[in-house]
């Protein structure tokens, strides 16, 4: 189902290994950016006391989301199976409109561009963009 070539998968794995020890920083920055640039996304976090960049809930949740992305990298050969539980969570409990996956993916790419300016080449960018699209599709699998 996914259209990730062997080269895409390798590229993603190699690049993500570099990101691995910065998950909290990257996740927090991506989430903060999403809340600032796309204010409509704040509607999903009305239960947080503090939505400002670098706040405790933003840091914690940013890390959670990045660990989820890491999980997807680990099961890149079968995203649907590997993300089944997460898909059910997003479909039945969180009910996040899948349009927002694209928004967060874009914010993540911006953060990676800032933190890894030399490694985030156009070739890495295209593989990651494809991967995040496949991840978003797998996450939407159980919606209906």
């Amino acid at each position, binding site marked *: 189902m996914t259209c990730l070539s062997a080269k895409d998968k390798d590229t993603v794995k190699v690049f993500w290994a570099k990101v691995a020890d910065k998950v909290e920083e990257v996740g927090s920055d991506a989430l*903060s*950016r999403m*809340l*600032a*640039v796309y204010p409509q996304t704040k509607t999903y976090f009305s239960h947080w006391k503090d939505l400002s*960049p670098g706040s405790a809930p933003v840091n914690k949740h940013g890390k959670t989301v990045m660990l989820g992305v890491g999980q997807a990298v680990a099961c890149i050969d079968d995203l649907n199976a590997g993300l089944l539980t997460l898909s059910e969570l997003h479909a039945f409990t969180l009910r996040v409109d899948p349009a927002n996956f694209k928004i967060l993916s*874009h914010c993540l*790419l*911006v953060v990676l*561009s*800032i933190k890894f*300016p030399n490694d*985030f*080449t*156009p*070739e890495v*960018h*295209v593989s990651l*963009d494809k991967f995040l699209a496949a991840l978003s599709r797998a996450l939407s699998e159980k919606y209906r």
Partner: protein
Amino acid sequence: MVVWTDFERATITDIFSKLDYEAVGGATLARCLIVYPWTQRYFGNFGNLYNAAAISGNPMVAKHGTTILHGLDRAVKNMDNIKATYAELSVLHSEKLHVDPDNFKLLSDCLTIVVAAQLGKDFTGEVQAAFQKFLAVVVSALGRQYH
């Protein structure tokens, strides 16, 4: 009528004053052609676009990237009147170039990423919000004359 805050005006002007239009323009168009290969459909006469290395080294891509950035410069200098400033460009893209307006968003996402890499930490969430708002207005103005 677009309303710009003082912060947004200052941010946009500041960003563009720091950009090397040639470097950023070329890198942005190249990235767009690599990440979204279907956009190559508009550049049939650009020669070798066979792979990322060829695209990144292609002088026509570099030159056209610069043209695009100078086009954006016109919007920066006419922030209160982008719609009118871009009326002719919109007609050009629709009637002569036949560019699907969805592509404008793809290019602006690539520009955001290239500018982010250049500005680093200075490209904060607030700066990104202002930059993307500016690009959204530009994209809307470019698509206005399509029918």
